[in-house]
């Protein structure tokens, strides 16, 4: 398979910068795969799993919301946070899940409710990606 340039950037660091043959990523519209020579494409990413083919092997990571941008020069993912499946702190994710669930029950305002929901989704995504490892 032909390879192409992939960059994953978070506010804290450049998470990945290198060549890959294929990625599979969850967008708001469903899972999509990107191979070399893909059309220019931009899509919103919710918290979801992300898989990248490196030396023939698929490696999994958790993406906590962001945007996918495919262009001729490179494919870029701008994510608020990203972790490889084996780097996920499961204890922390579970605590965060419990906290989000508690807040969902307690809060009354729409705004707080929405934030708690997003937090819960991020936590559940981390837990599910970590268990697939």
């Amino acid at each position, binding site marked *: 398979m032909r390879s192409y340039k992939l960059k994953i950037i978070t506010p804290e660091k450049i998470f990945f910068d290198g060549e890959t043959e294929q990625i599979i990523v969850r967008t708001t519209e469903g899972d999509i795969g990107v191979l070399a020579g893909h059309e220019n494409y931009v899509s919103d990413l919710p918290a979801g799993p992300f898989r990248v083919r490196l030396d023939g092997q698929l490696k999994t990571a958790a993406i906590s919301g962001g945007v996918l941008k495919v262009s001729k020069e490179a494919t870029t993912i701008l994510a*608020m946070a990203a972790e490889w499946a084996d780097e996920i702190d499961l204890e922390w994710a579970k605590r965060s899940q419990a906290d989000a669930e508690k807040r969902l029950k307690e809060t009354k305002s729409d705004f707080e409710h929405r934030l708690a929901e997003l937090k819960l989704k991020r936590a559940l995504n981390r837990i599910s990606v970590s268990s697939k490892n």
Partner: protein
Amino acid sequence: MASSNMKDIKRRIKSVESTKQITNAMQLVASSKLRKAKEKADSSKPFFNAMYDTMCEIVREDATFTSIYTRKRKANVTLMVVISGDRGLAGGFNANVLKLAQQRYNEIAKDGHEAVVLPIGKKAVEYFEKRNFKIMTRYENIGESISVYGAMSIADKIIDVYNKDKIDKVELFYTDCISPLVQEEKHMALIPVNIETDKTNISLTNYEPSPESVFDSLIPRYIAGVLFGAIVNSFAAEQAARRTAMENATDNANEMISNLSLVYNRARQAAITQEITEIVSGANAQE
């Protein structure tokens, strides 16, 4: 008389020495914190640049593009996000950014508009509370350990208030850490987003679900990215400013100590000379 004078000088030397110990320690702490903070500040830049480019591309590609985040509203109420440090003794660091914000506030007030402040950092909170400014939310002691999620929760709050039409404009005041020796106070418009639309590279791109919806969902992440970058940069700038200030203070203390030592030694010499003169003249008188 001479001996009491000498005691005074000795005491002053001691006090300057203990001050010097403190400034020296603060300088060391600041430079070790600066190294970490500068790294964090530098690694926040690629995200911001890529995010901003993506947003500009969306707007550039579609001539009919509109979003509530790019349209200018009549600026009745401006939210000023002001980032300062949590502690003093950092030279002009806190004063400079607060002065910039105050100037902008005066301009807004002169035009007959209203301004609300969102201070980040203890010094900014104290400054605006003392002057009875309208404060939306205050954040203290978050600069050193700010996480992306911390920045996101601030961004979400700002966007929520903006969407409820309580504010019409958001401006950011922070200090950019350009290098360990150069810090610069910055003032930037956060919402409406200032988009550069030079129509140069137009490429056909497929946006899913739509350019508008991608753009609007980018906004909270963009604001969070900008805030995160501004907070970590301000923190790095604070450490850099403190290091420089404390370095100067240590140098000054050294100079004072050497001057005082000179005066002390002179006084000691004078006292000895006087004593000898007294003994000699006493001996002479007995002959």
